[in-house]
């Protein structure tokens, strides 16, 4: 075992010389490492590493993948020192609110200096999964050159690169199995990056380029799909037509996950039949997404493939209630459903009727900024789903108004929620029937759903909501708050009451220094805290930074703003000390 030999030569610490080892453990190190090596769960590995020095070492040597939830909580040097044998790295960068334009450009989270260290310490790196990081073309080119065994790259919500970077990956990563580009800000320069996969390249299993805007070289794509017999996941962009889709499906009937191109084109009867046949042929399809622009008359071609679907992502396909209802009749096995609110309550009733196994529902708004009599989904649709889908444990629901009673009914029907994200789109919107705050709604959620891990609240909310959360939400790990609360007391309740809290993100709430400082003891046990447009001042932040030296307390300053206010505060624990790459508008206190 190569890694064991390496270890014997490199081990220097006095506690683990030969005599001591024999004395304190009856397992040879290889066995211990083998056993611990089988642990997959991060939490288990963490616990194991705390037992004793031998176990700590066995764990760190046997670790193959590492997950870093905040790229600034640790440095690549510290990481590589502790874990010498990593094959797969997952890194998350910017605070989540950067998705909503609350973090300025050039804030940081650049992958490059990580890659430089990895090139030296992890030359056998195989997988890189990044979320909310800045990735340049130069970094992608460097990656493609530096890791001969590289297999899988997944970029979600990243920015800074273009299709040139993809071309480099395609050309140089000979063993690539996965190229997954999701929801990034990408400069789509040309259509030729697909041609960069060499003719001899056949190992691809996952290809997702659904976010690209421009046409791709279809010829190159078809050839690629034809020769990659192990392709399981193919997610196309909207430039791919139905006719092209049919040709691809003909080449790859083994697909398990499909993201279609646009679902609207004038088809002849023959083409329609061929397309229908192509879908019937895909016996392994469990995930369907895409559609983009839909001609509803063509949806029936999907019906033959629907029976085995477990995940239907129509969140980019604004269907109406009739179309979705007709489709869902065939989708009895659906576990996860993402839709646009154009399906309205009637569509949700169909969900409740036809999809009893549903576990996750996400309803996105077609028109978030619509004024006046905009339609969408309401409380009755929410109730309808909860009545039919008793296994529901994950919901993301965008609506224009809600009632306390409806939410109470929903959680009574589905008490097993682990993720409850309700977004009432008008800030500060009260219960539209009673005009009361929505406190009781979220009170019902936390009282009934004891397994709740993630909660996002909205609507008109007073401190009472936070009292409820602090009192009942004992398993809560992530809380997102916007336009809510009455005073510092609210935030204090949460900080004092939720023992498992890891991520707290707050915007536009009346929480000030007292609230911020009440969490002094708490923040080191959390991943991060975000507060923007609250009432926190620079002095409050300075005090926090002074009292807690192992926290990074960062304030994002805007030009021309009041010097004493801290508009955007990001607090996180770190073993790497203050950032060395902070731009001028990020003040580390």
């Amino acid at each position, binding site marked *: 075992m190569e890694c064991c030999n390496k270890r014997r030569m490199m081990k220097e610490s006095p506690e683990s010389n030969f005599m001591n080892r024999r004395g304190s453990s009856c397992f040879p190190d290889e066995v211990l490492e083998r056993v611990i090596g089988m642990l997959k769960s991060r939490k288990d590995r963490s616990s194991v590493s705390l037992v004793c020095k031998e176990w700590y070492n066995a764990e760190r040597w046997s670790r193959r993948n590492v997950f870093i939830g905040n790229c600034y909580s640790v440095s690549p040097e510290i990481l590589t020192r502790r874990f010498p044998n990593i094959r797969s790295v997952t890194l998350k960068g910017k605070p989540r609110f950067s998705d909503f334009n609350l973090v300025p450009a050039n804030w940081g989270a650049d992958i490059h200096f990580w890659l430089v260290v990895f090139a030296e310490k992890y030359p056998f790196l195989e997988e890189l999964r990044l979320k909310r990081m800045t990735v340049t073309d130069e970094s992608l080119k460097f990656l493609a050159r530096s890791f001969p065994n590289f297999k899988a790259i997944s970029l979600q919500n990243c920015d800074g690169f273009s299709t040139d970077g993809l071309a480099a990956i395609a050309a140089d990563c000979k063993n690539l199995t996965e190229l997954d580009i999701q929801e990034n800000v990408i400069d789509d320069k040309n259509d030729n990056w697909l041609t960069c996969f060499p003719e001899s390249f056949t190992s691809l299993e996952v290809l997702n380029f659904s976010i690209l805007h421009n046409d791709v070289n279809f010829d190159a794509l078809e050839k690629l799909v034809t020769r990659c017999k192990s392709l399981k996941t193919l997610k196309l962009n909207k430039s791919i037509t139905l006719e092209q889709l049919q040709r691809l499906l003909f080449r790859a009937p083994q697909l398990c996950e499909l993201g279609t191109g646009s679902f609207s084109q004038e088809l002849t009867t023959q083409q329609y039949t061929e397309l229908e046949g192509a879908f019937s042929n895909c016996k392994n399809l469990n995930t369907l997404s895409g559609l983009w622009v839909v001609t509803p008359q063509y949806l029936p071609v999907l019906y033959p493939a629907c029976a085995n679907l477990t995940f239907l992502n129509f969140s980019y396909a604004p269907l109406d209630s009739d179309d979705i209802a007709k489709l869902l009749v065939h989708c009895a096995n659906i576990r996860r459903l993402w839709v646009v609110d154009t399906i309205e309550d009637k569509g949700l009733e169909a969900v409740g009727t036809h999809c009893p196994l549903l576990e996750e529902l996400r309803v996105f708004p077609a028109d978030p900024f619509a004024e006046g009599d905009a339609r969408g989904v309401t409380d009755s649709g929410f109730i309808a789903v909860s009545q039919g889908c008793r296994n529901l444990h994950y919901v993301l629901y965008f609506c224009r108004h809600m009632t306390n009673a409806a939410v109470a009914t929903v959680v009574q029907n589905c008490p097993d929620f682990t993720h409850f994200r309700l977004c009432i789109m008008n800030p*500060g919107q009260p219960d539209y029937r009673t005009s009361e705050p929505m406190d009781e709604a979220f009170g019902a959620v936390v009282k009934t759903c004891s397994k709740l891990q993630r909660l996002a609240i909205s609507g*008109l909310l007073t401190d009472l909501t936070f009292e409820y959360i602090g009192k009942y939400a004992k398993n809560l790990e992530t809380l997102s708050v916007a336009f809510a609360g009455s005073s510092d007391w609210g935030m204090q309740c949460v900080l004092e009451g939720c023992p498992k809290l890891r991520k707290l993100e707050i915007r536009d709430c009346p929480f000030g220094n007292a609230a911020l400082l009440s969490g002094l003891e708490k923040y080191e046990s959390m991943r991060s805290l975000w507060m923007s447009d609250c009432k926190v001042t620079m002095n409050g932040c300075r005090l926090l930074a002074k009292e807690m030296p192992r926290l990074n307390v960062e304030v994002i300053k805007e030009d021309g703003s009041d010097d004493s206010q801290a508009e955007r505060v990001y607090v996180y624990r770190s073993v790497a000390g203050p950032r060395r790459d902070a731009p001028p*508008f990020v003040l580390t206190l």
Partner: protein
Amino acid sequence: MEPSIYQSELNLEATELRLGLPGRTNNKRSSPEDRSMSISISKNSSVDSSGPSNATDHDDDDDDHQNSVQPAKVQVVGWPPVRSFRRNSMQQQKQKKDEHNNNNGDGSAMYVKVSMAGAPYLRKIDLNIYNSYSQLLNALQNLFKCSFGEYSEREGYNGSEYAPTYEDKDGDWMLVGDVPWDMFTCSCKRLRIVKGSEAKGLASL
């Protein structure tokens, strides 16, 4: 860093509808990388038309126990929390749909009155949910429990008990089925189901 769009481009600070609680002074909204988010102020229904007013002057008779955040429809940065890619994608599709609808008539629903000789009440149907004459006629026959029989260009609905007619934009009463479907939906103002004998007169013209 780009200055807040609010302040520099629109210069609306003086008349700003704000979402903060009363007493909050600096309610800066800056959107440094926001290319696609539009910031606009929409009027609350109770505000008079002379312009947007400060939220605290709101006249609503809500028995709001606190002066908590008024549900004013101001668009703020990053709210609702929908990612740019999704927003842009939906926006593009909405535009396409609007274009499509504008080519086909007025917006997403086109209700017309339907009367029937001898019936005490009129009905209303949405022409846009049908794609062809056969769909429309089936619906009408179901709605009024009548039958039209076969349409022929020469004879109209000759031989049937009832026939469908419509009033066009010029105010003339026409037999349903003569013109292409799209042209019909654009020009039909209302429908009337007449007795076969009345329609005979139309068909033989």
